[in-house]
């Protein structure tokens, strides 16, 4: 069986700029897929090509086995939830949500029934008569979602669905969005520049850079096994160390640089290779005294920041090596070191990611 969405060698140029560059991607039915990238990486162009608002210069897009080249936006089984929602300001909440149903010429009783169902789905029952401007940001987001879902699209595109919400609301809303997606089993493609949003929402993430997909994987794989420096840096905080491979032995690689590090062998590295090591802040343990394990480095605390849930440290090791680490403020976990104190950090060889760039 062919995949639900089949993007093959799609390219789109604006003048000299290649917005989307020979991109191929398959997405399965019912997935919550996330296109992640910085602004200008081409993710929004790809989204608009799926919706039919943007021409495809070369390549093809198939949705549910049908080539979309000749299908105008209104006829595609696709709806889009716009960034900033694009609610019609001159229509009530109900008229906004029913807009697509009216265009489709549905009979009035069916429109009313469907409207009630949608209002219930997004927990806005009884607010149909309100004007969009009278709503809070979170309510507006839910109206936009209901409007985009009204025509029961096979594919829903969401352009930065949480960007306009404040931090606290964002967390609740992302759980809600995942719930609705799971209940309806509609395929969702979310475009975002926020790596945390992507990781919490998506079953799979495609990271885009300069019009190309750099890596497509589950959030956990992307975070724990980034393919290159760009991905490692883009998805969360990371510390980089540089060095040269001195031995490859029994599943471990030894690397010499400002500090000596032992890493689990991912294969493909030989003695003499220059490597960059990426280590996540939560994988580094900090203690007052050495524990005698591998990868233990004496450090001085340069900065520390209490964030509530955790305390973030910046420490300096030998040769000015800087590491960022985070220490959860859990029960029983005492904060091990204060500002300008010295101690030791250590990390597991399995938590060291070796990169070539």
């Amino acid at each position: 069986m062919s995949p639900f969405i089949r993007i093959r060698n799609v390219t789109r140029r604006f003048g000299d700029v290649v917005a989307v560059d020979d991109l191929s991607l398959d997405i399965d039915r019912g997935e919550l897929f996330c296109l992640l990238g910085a602004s200008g990486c081409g993710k929004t162009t790809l989204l608009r090509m799926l919706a039919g608002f943007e021409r495809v210069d070369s390549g093809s897009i198939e949705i549910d086995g049908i080539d979309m080249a000749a299908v105008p936006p209104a006829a595609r089984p696709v709806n889009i939830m716009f960034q900033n929602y694009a609610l019609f300001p001159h229509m009530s909440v109900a008229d906004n949500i029913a807009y697509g149903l009216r265009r489709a010429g549905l009979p009035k009783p069916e429109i009313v029934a469907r409207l009630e169902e949608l209002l219930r789905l997004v927990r806005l029952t009884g607010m149909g008569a309100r004007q969009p401007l009278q709503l809070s940001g979170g309510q507006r987001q839910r109206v936009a979602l209901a409007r985009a879902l009204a025509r029961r699209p096979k594919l829903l595109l969401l352009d930065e669905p949480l960007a306009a919400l404040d931090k606290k609301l964002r967390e609740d809303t992302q759980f809600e969005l995942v719930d609705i997606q799971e209940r309806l089993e509609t395929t969702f493609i979310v475009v975002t520049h926020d790596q945390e949003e992507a990781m919490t929402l998506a079953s799979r993430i495609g990271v885009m850079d300069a019009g190309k997909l750099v890596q497509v994987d589950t959030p956990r794989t992307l975070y724990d096994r980034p393919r290159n420096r760009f991905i490692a840096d883009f998805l969360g905080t990371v510390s980089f160390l540089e060095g040269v491979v001195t031995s490859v032995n029994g599943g471990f690689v030894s690397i010499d640089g400002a500090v000596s590090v032992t890493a689990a062998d991912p294969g493909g590295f030989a003695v003499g290779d220059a490597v960059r090591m990426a280590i996540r802040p939560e994988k580094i343990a900090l203690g007052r005294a050495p524990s005698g394990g591998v990868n233990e480095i004496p450090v001085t605390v340069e900065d520390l920041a209490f964030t509530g849930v955790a305390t973030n440290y910046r420490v300096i090791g030998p040769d000015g090596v800087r590491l960022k680490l985070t220490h959860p403020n859990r029960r029983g976990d005492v904060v091990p070191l204060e500002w300008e104190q010295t101690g030791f950090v250590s990390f597991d060889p399995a938590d060291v990611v070796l990169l070539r760039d």
Partner: protein
Amino acid sequence: MAAARQWIARHGRRLVVALPLLWLLVFFLLPLVEVAQTSFTVARRGIPPFAPLWGFGEDGFFTNFNLENYGLLLDYWQDYIGPAGNSLRLAFFSTLICLLFAYPMAWWIARSNPRRRAILLVLVMLPFWTSSLLRIYALIGLLNPNGFINSMLMFLGVIDTPIRMMQTDFSIYMGMLLTYLPLMILPLYAVMIRLEDDLLDAAADLGASRAGVFLTVVLPLTLPGIIAGSLLVFIPAVGEFVIPALLGGPEQIMVGKHGRQGVVDRILPQP
């Protein structure tokens, strides 16, 4: 010292506010009062073409207050009905024609990139910079039986005898269009520039046809601009007399023209 400075600061701010308020009072309100007063005074030859309503002459306070003008209106109201109807009809259709031309133009300007937008706006405003009479005469030169357009069409062999364009409704409405189009374009542009592309895309995405997008989204959201532009054109168009006088036939008598013939012409300095 500090108190003095504060006093000056406060006083200065009041002066800054008082100055424009005073200006508005003197040069907006007073002329309106003047115009109202004029209706109660008597006509005369001179500049201005009416006697002051009251004042202090050599014999002290005098007044020219009378209701004769309103009496005239009562006596001759039938003479004014026709021209008033003409004026309203002219203004109405001029407004409509301006709207029909201005709407796609304003749309095109608002949807252009910012650089071209600025150039187009300047082009739209440019006619305001040239003398309105010169513009009308240029139009006459274009529309005359042996003017540019007829000459061109005859040269190309499209027509054999000149088309009569001058002194028709066509020439009048062309003149009105030429004069009032910018007043219609600007408010339309102002609402269209704020119309988000996403709203149009959203409507199309939800299954609306081109006409559907226009009727359900574009038209209602640009309505304030349509109303503002129509008022800006209609109000001065009602009082317009130069354009019908120069471009229209002798049967065109408007309120403005009538009024001008009755009052204004007498005192226009003759060369």
